[in-house]
């Protein structure tokens, strides 16, 4: 797992690494990243209804040989844990997660403390945590 302080240029970098399907649930901390994804040529971009759906769509694309990236706010990790543990890991279909980190508001405090540890606990191999200026309340 990697932690970065900005997602500037990340979408373009991921295309360079071969990612062709981007699917996620929007997060204000990832707004710039999502705008960059929308501006990309030759990639599929799906905004899912919830994070579990996004993970499953990405796993299906990986199964079909298309590299896939899931973006979500760390609050959505709760929704994503089931498909990460019962689909992605046992089936060997592990899309990249780009996770917007939040921790200041009361509803984000607990997940803000444990997001990285949670991904390490389930031994998920491929994730980027984006710490940005989205934690000022």
């Amino acid at each position, binding site marked *: 797992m990697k932690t970065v302080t900005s997602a500037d240029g990340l979408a373009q970098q991921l295309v360079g690494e071969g990612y*062709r*399907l981007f*699917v996620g649930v929007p997060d204000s901390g990832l707004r710039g990243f999502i705008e960059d994804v929308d501006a990309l040529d030759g990639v*599929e971009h*799906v905004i*899912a*209804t*919830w994070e*579990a*759906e*996004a*993970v*499953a*769509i*990405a*796993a*299906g*694309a*990986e*199964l*079909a*040989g*298309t590299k*896939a990236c899931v973006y979500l706010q760390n609050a959505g990790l709760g929704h994503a844990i*089931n*498909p990460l*543990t*019962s*689909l992605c890991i*046992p*089936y*060997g*279909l592990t899309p990249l997660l780009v996770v917007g980190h939040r921790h200041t508001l009361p509803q984000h405090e607990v997940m803000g403390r444990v997001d990285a540890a949670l991904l390490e606990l389930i031994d998920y191999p491929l994730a980027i945590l984006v710490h940005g200026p989205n934690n000022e309340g």
Partner: protein
Amino acid sequence: MRAEPTSRSAAIQQILGRHGTDAVYVASTGYVSRAVAAEVGPEHVVLYMQGSMGLAPAIGLGIVLGSDRTVVVLNGDGALLMSLGTTHTIRDHAPADRFFHYVLDNGCHESVGGQPCAALEQSYPGVTAILPITRDGKPPRVPVSPPDNVAQVRARILR
């Protein structure tokens, strides 16, 4: 007017007959996967989604967006309701000529004891057809491990 229920195996055979052996099938968790495994021949390719209840249609959508194959999802009624929003993602993103989503409707969570689930509406966006079925009991286990299953499906998609 809802059709009279058929047997589960008759409903699955109807779907397999309609879409043949070129499609990639995705079967939902629990008895749906087991029942499909009991009906298919060696020429059918099926991803058995044995965990992640509710997400078989989303996996199918990912496969269809990431490939040029036809994808057929066999879902259950409880699983449909669990991620009902996915029907709208399918409506907006799935190519209608090669994505098909069937719901086997037995009115209950048969795999875990037959507890009732909420009754379905007559139709949904992103759902090809709802097939009422009877409660036909526990089929044998799916005879393939997840990694081997992934390898089989990948070989069909990439051939």
